[in-house]
């Protein structure tokens, strides 16, 4: 999977969690929870949606590594490239 494909997959997962969110002009360094006003329940559901999209299960110990879109791409890209 390429980086643009991964970003699209992440945005699709985000859209499932926050359907009303505007996904254009995202600051890749802004924490997703602030950018999309999502709480910890939404965040957990986002991880489920990412697993469904990408087949990657994220461990609880790694949650803090996935706060921004940039974090997510950096963390997930090597894992989906291996798939």
């Amino acid at each position, binding site marked *: 999977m390429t980086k643009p494909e991964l970003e699209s997959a992440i945005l699709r997962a985000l859209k499932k969690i926050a359907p009303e969110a505007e996904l254009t002009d995202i600051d890749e360094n802004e924490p997703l929870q602030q950018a999309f006003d999502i709480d*910890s*329940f939404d965040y*957990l559901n986002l991880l489920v949606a990412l*697993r469904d999209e990408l087949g990657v299960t994220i461990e*609880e110990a790694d949650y803090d590594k996935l706060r921004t879109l940039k974090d997510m791409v950096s963390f997930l890209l090597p894992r989906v490239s291996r798939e």
Partner: protein
Amino acid sequence: MPSLGADMEDGTLLLWKVHPGDRVKRGDIIAEVGTDKGDIEVEVFEDGVVKKLLVEEGTDVPVGQVLAIIENDETDASPAPEAKAARVKASPVAKKLAEERGLDLHTIHGTGPAGAITRDDVEKATGEKRPARPKTEKRPSGDNLSKMRHAIAVAMARSNREIPHYYLETRIDLKRALDWLAEENKKLPLEDRMLPVVLLLKAVARSLKDVPELNGFWVDDGLQKSEAVHIGFAIALRKGGLVTPAIHDVDQKTLSDIMKALEDLIPRARVGRLRSSEMTDATITVTSLGELGVETVHGVIYPPQVGLVGLGKILEQPWAENGMLGIRPVLSATIAGDHRATDGRRGAQFLDALARYLRDPEKL
């Protein structure tokens, strides 16, 4: 029309979900009503057969007006949805007043917590309605958000006007609780993992069983303690506003059950699909603002409840124990208490119990 909030005066019957002749059982959704706090699904409180729908869809209806007749399986027709129940809930003052005036409580519509009959209800039934409480502002006719803002304004103004609040705060070391939760979550599939708030809610519920004076209502100048622990969980809506639907019987639920209840409740709260019992049954409110970075919450009690628990952000902080200094995840927990119902000692006992339960998470 059930009373679905502290100062709800009326609602709009939006939709009937039953027809005359339909059989219904306790807990079935029979109608949707529009209120200042959103659209609410009205449940029926006993089994029976719908005999007659008394209100047309689209009609504004004052609280207390009968919406439909449901024929009980054993008895004659009775009003619904807050229909005649085997055991009538009423405040001690209301019971005494009804007895003095020779009134059968079964014939009086209750507008108090969970449909309980209050002194006002008895006085209304005898035609001695007291003067209406002065309104703080004119009810707006704008969109749902401004109506919700109005509902919150009325309830909170009433709280500040009537409830002498006291506040207590404590810091709780959550290291054991969070470590235990992380280990439990490792055993669970992703979708079943639990969040720390689940532990906190269960610990609040257990603590309320130890200090029941904080779990209940101030009605007719007296405290009505509640056996059941129904926690109103404050949920902020993305478009603004706040709802506090009840999670029922939290003390009896497993941690996993509480997580499932929240996963069910939060999306429904956001799209306005709450049920009438969820709007009326809360015996205490928990407000958790830690995710927004708030360290300490000093909340306003939702009348007629007598307590509000505030949960702040879990922060890594220096923590001294046994002469050693370390870094621990620390929660600031507060209790706002109604000083008419309890004093600071009870509040302190509650916070002490909360810290104790969170030190032994495996027992939750």
